[in-house]
């Protein structure tokens, strides 16, 4: 397998939706019936990027930024208004079925498991839909069932917890050994342990099978734990395309310092720092690193107060992204 083999190539991809507009009231309805008026809204605006085999790419942006629209064009279920895309050598919207044999997708908000049937029924169906060899399918199923701890193969999906269901969803999309897996909000609504489990498994499969992962998520933990590279889009435009550490070094110019005190501190004054939150024994301090060094702050704290614990944290990726958007 060639290293740095580009398997997704997107050039000036653009999608414009025509949205019908209607004035209020009956006369408005009549008016829009006779002379329909539409407004073009640009969901994806000339974005270009590439993805290499084996990468885990985080695709981030606020609601309505064009994330899902982009994914839908890349898996071929949506026609673009203009632009090119090449996924595994196919033009997705022209060769959808051929491409579908080689990719998997999980849309967190759109289950693919049959609701009233146990997961095994959906898995069996998937093996037929992807035209898998019976023996190969059994082997693959056993492996995934074991790794994803699906000990509820014969329980109707409606009786499963959200975490169990989501794991089964991911298994359903991995059965045919896809080369790329598109995950749209895979951890939405899950608790921390369930999230962690899904993340670990995604990482494991990425390492073991070199499957390329294309992930959109609202969950910044997902991104920090999983992604090698991050693309941020906003209003359909790409605003960032680089590694997570680059994102941090460019945009992280401050730290959040959480301090626990033995005795309630009296007066806290330190230029360049601002108290975000305080209670009698705890304090969260925001430090602008362009003005002061973190070491100075720690020195100041330890020499002036009885400190029990100090925790220095980067702002969350969410805060960083909010910063990019404001630019």
């Amino acid at each position, binding site marked *: 397998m060639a290293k740095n083999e580009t398997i997704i190539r997107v050039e000036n991809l653009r999608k414009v939706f025509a949205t019908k507009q209607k004035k209020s009231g009956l006369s408005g309805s009549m008016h829009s019936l006779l002379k329909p008026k539409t407004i073009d809204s640009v969901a994806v605006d000339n974005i270009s990027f590439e993805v290499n085999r084996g990468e885990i790419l985080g695709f981030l942006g606020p609601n309505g930024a064009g994330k899902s629209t982009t994914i839908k064009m890349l898996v071929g279920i949506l026609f673009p208004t203009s632009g090119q895309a090449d996924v595994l050598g196919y033009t997705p919207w022209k060769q959808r079925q051929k491409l579908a044999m080689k990719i998997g997708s999980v849309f967190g908000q759109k289950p693919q498991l049959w*609701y009233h049937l146990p997961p095994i029924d959906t898995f069996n169906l998937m093996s037929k839909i992807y035209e898998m060899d019976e023996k190969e399918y059994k082997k693959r199923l056993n492996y995934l069932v074991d790794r994803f701890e699906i000990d509820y193969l014969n329980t109707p999906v409606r009786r499963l917890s959200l975490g169990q269901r989501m794991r089964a969803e991911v298994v359903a999309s991995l059965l045919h050994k896809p080369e790329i897996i598109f995950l749209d909000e895979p951890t939405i609504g899950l608790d921390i342990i369930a999230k962690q489990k899904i993340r670990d498994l995604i990482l494991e499969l990425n390492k073991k099978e070199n499957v390329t992962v294309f992930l959109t998520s609202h969950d910044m933990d997902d991104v920090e734990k999983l992604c090698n590279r991050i693309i941020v889009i906003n209003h359909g435009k790409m605003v960032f395309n680089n590694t997570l550490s680059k994102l941090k070094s460019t945009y992280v110019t401050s730290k959040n310092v959480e301090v626990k005190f033995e005795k309630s501190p009296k007066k806290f004054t330190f230029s360049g720092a601002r108290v975000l939150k305080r209670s009698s024994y705890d304090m969260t301090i925001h430090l602008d690193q362009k003005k002061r060094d973190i070491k100075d702050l720690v020195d100041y704290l330890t020499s002036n107060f009885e400190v029990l614990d100090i925790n220095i944290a980067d702002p969350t990726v969410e805060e960083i992204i909010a910063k990019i958007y404001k630019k």
Partner: protein
Amino acid sequence: MSYSKYFFIAKIEILSAFAYYINILSSSVFITFLLFIFYNLWKAVYLASAVTSISGFTLVGLLWYLTLSESIWNSGSGRTAVIKISDDVKSGNIAYYLNKPYNFVVYHFSSTTGTAIIRSVITFAFAGTLIYFLVGPLKITLFEIPFVLLSVLLAIILAISMNFLIGVTAFWIEDISAFRWIQDKLIFVLGGMLIPLSFFPLFLQKIALVLPFSYVAYAPAYMFVNFSVSFFVETVLIQILWITLFVAGASLLYNLGAKRVSINGG
């Protein structure tokens, strides 16, 4: 690409439909009750007019006619699937059915036909049992049964095609419920659901036989009661013709529509 997958899609939909068995059973019981009313109504009509046969139908024949046509009707013929399709088209969710390697049109037919057949069979079992006890068996030879079944199957597929065509117009038309309503009533009257077309004035019969609706209910049910090979051949050919036309139309609209799918949300 292999086609056996569509068979399995039909199978899983049938399995899933059994989860709604209360729904299937209750509608079957309702149809059975309806036929009990029809029995009393028509018995009175035949008694009052002191005849054994009206337009070629005996009371026994008429009741079996109604049993089969109602059973075809109660197959659902993809009606719920169509409401779903039109909703999915409007919301853009239709796109989610396309992330797998199958042809969507074939997928739709295989997923709805399986369930429709099961519903039909169950309805017929319920209603048929009642009618059997009320008026006795219908004179039919074993030889005729496979022909009738084939025509019933085509009738169900025809109804599904019609509904599918209506469903995909949702790409252009916001609310398709009016179309569905009109089509329902046309099948009811011109399709011969309420009474056999043979009871209609001749000119109306002629019109009804030109339209596709009578091939959903009247033709297979009539064949069930008054079988003839020539009627079978004619019916099946016309059924296939209408199915081809509707499927072609629906595929064309679908393929045009899929290009303009807009999706809500980012």
